[in-house]
């Protein structure tokens, strides 16, 4: 009797194990954790797993993009197969291309054609398609509609000077009752986020893009210097002194707690700001970032965005490609656009009624998302990170009052020349 029981248990256990095998393979994805990102990634993975019978494991990455790159590089250099799918920043493909499989020929050509051509170009290194665009990002100006109305303004500011005047007036009025209230918050910490913010200031004032498409260092010009001085003039006036320690989430925290009139941030902040626990729900307006004055001034939003690539060292490449194609596909992008304000990389979705209902500004700001200003990751190639660090460091010195715009851009030009050496 005892023997029979053992036998039955054993058979049952083996059957269960066989079942687990039949359920497919486990694919590990490393995705971001900023705001609602992690949950959306888990949900998306679960939907794919249910449809295909495979299993998805989500690897939690650090919040700051710099930390993430360091971690991924170590994993990839060690040829680790722990992570199958990586979420890549738009400035990384040039640096990491060799570790990822070529998606050309593995993903149907028609699917590749359905994305914005510019984004596919950004993910192509040589002739190799390193990753599929998952969502795109551009800097936006968030404002409090109720505050603008209260202080007699009818529309969002269109120039930086206007923004400063409005922010100062609202801040002065609100601080009478709320000491913590500030006019404007942005990403002022010395990291990749500051590079994005500062590229917007410089481009919007006609100061060029640090390094131009041909690889020439262009940052040492009066417009760029003026742009940085303007930004420095906000610190301690319309922005708190601590703004030079803020990343995306610190800025969002202040805005969402109702303590700021304006905020520069990425689109993801919209869905969270409209959430049930948000103190500014229903009081948020979104506009293009202001522009400077003078020749060459234009609206500029830094181009961000994340891609999905399959590691060359993955042991389950087929399943990983299937996961990437699914997550970057129209159905999943639609869910992400509605629930998380992630900007689709498929032009077709910008005409989708459900998406426009959830994000009314998507339609009117279409040109902001598609014509955004790129960071110089293309021309500077593998040295982009050093260029970005040198730039954000110089900008941070201006913001904290250690130097002024003119000296900073001159010094930066020298530093960049040293980094460039004999060529990018």
């Amino acid at each position, binding site marked *: 009797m005892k023997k029979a029981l053992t036998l039955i248990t054993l058979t049952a256990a083996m059957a269960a194990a066989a079942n687990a095998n039949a359920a497919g393979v486990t694919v590990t994805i490393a995705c971001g954790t900023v705001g609602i990102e992690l949950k959306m990634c888990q949900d998306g993975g679960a939907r794919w797993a249910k449809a295909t019978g495979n299993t998805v494991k989500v690897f939690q990455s650090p919040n700051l993009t*710099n930390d993430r790159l360091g971690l991924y590089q170590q994993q990839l250099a060690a040829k680790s197969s722990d992570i199958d799918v990586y979420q890549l920043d738009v400035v990384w493909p040039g640096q990491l291309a060799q570790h990822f499989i070529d998606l050309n020929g593995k993903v149907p050509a028609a699917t590749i054609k359905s994305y914005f051509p510019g984004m596919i170009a950004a993910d192509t290194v040589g002739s190799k398609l390193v990753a599929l665009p998952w969502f795109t990002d551009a800097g936006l100006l968030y404002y409090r509609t109720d505050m603008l109305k209260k202080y007699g303004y009818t529309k969002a500011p269109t120039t930086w000077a206007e923004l400063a005047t409005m922010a100062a007036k609202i801040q002065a009025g609100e601080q009478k009752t709320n000491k913590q209230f500030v006019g404007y918050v942005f990403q002022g910490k010395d990291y990749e986020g500051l590079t994005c913010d500062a590229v917007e200031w410089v481009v919007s004032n006609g100061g060029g893009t640090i390094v131009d498409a041909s690889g020439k260092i262009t940052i040492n010009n009066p417009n760029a210097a003026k742009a940085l001085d303007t930004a420095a003039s906000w610190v301690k006036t319309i922005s708190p002194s*601590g703004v030079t320690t803020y990343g995306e989430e610190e800025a969002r925290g202040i805005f969402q707690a109702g303590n700021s009139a304006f905020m520069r941030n990425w689109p993801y902040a919209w869905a969270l700001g409209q959430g049930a626990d948000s103190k500014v729900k229903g009081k948020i307006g979104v506009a293009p970032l202001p522009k400077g004055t003078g020749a060459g001034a234009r609206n500029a939003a830094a181009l961000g965005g994340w891609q999905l690539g399959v590691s060359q060292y993955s042991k389950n490449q087929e399943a990983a490609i299937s996961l990437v194609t699914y997550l970057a596909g129209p159905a999943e992008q639609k869910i992400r656009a509605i629930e998380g304000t992630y900007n689709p990389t498929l032009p077709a979705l910008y005409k989708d009624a459900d998406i426009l209902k959830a994000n009314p500004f998507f339609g009117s700001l279409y040109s902001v998302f598609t014509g955004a200003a790129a960071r110089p990751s293309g021309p500077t190639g593998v040295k982009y*990170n050093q260029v970005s660090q040198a730039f954000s460091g110089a900008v941070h010195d201006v913001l904290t009052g250690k130097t002024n715009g003119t000296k900073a851009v001159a010094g930066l030009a020298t530093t960049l020349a040293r980094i460039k050496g004999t060529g990018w």
Partner: protein
Amino acid sequence: MTNLSKAPTAPPTTRRKGIEATRARQAIWFLLPALIAIAVVAGYPLLRTIYFSMHEANLTSPEQAKYVGFTNFYGTGDEGVKFGFLTDPKWWSAVKNTLLFTVVSVALETVLGMVIALVVNSAFKGRSLMRTAMLIPWAIPTVVSAQMWAYMYNDNFGLIGRGLLGGQSPLADTGTAIWALIAVDVWKTTSFMALLILAGLQSLPSDMYEAADMDGASKWTQFWRMTLPLLRPALLVALIFRSLDALRVFDVMYVMLGPNTAAETSMTGYARQAMIDNSQLGLGSAVSVAIFLLIMVIVVMYVTAFRVKFD
């Protein structure tokens, strides 16, 4: 071999020497695993770092290293362009800040640690509870306590930034940030210092103090003439431990300041940025070698200046 040739002339000594030699051989066999372990986990990485410090190599493809001599440290290009980290003002700022951090925080920790150790060494009710409780800051992992302090320093909701300073962030200004970091380190490691000093205090004979009391020496005199000189060996070991730790500081800076500012504030942060963020394996290794040499020089200085004995 020599033992064998001596064998016929003095048999008894040979036997004793033979036993000693056997023991020595056995000892080597017993030590061998430890020596291999040291060679593998300490020697090999060190040699490899030195090897890479003289090569131009990328983190993502280390096998394609190119020999460049000492240009990772210092070099001049064709058009007089200087490269190598020794020409980078950021590196020198990191060295300056790390040394400042080390000197100030270790000095404060030693003085405060001594005071705390003397207090908890005296007999009072609840002494053992006190001794355990004071170790709590030290027991918290540095990344956790650093993040906790970063929140406290936050100018919008932090206990210190908003509460004490009325909306100023000490971390925003690099001039004040280093002092804010020293405060965190002192808060965290003073108790460790106190523990080391306390261990030293416990080994002092109590009858000596009884005799001193009989002779009418004041507590002050007892401290300066008896406690301090006898405590010297323990104190110096504690000082070396803490100084080396402080010179290698990384996590506090990295968590509280972010990668770029940390690279200007700590030598290890600079090394990490070169090696990881910029994937310059060669340059990063060169920086690591420089840190290793610098720390070694400081240890040698300590040991010779204070005649520390480790046995």
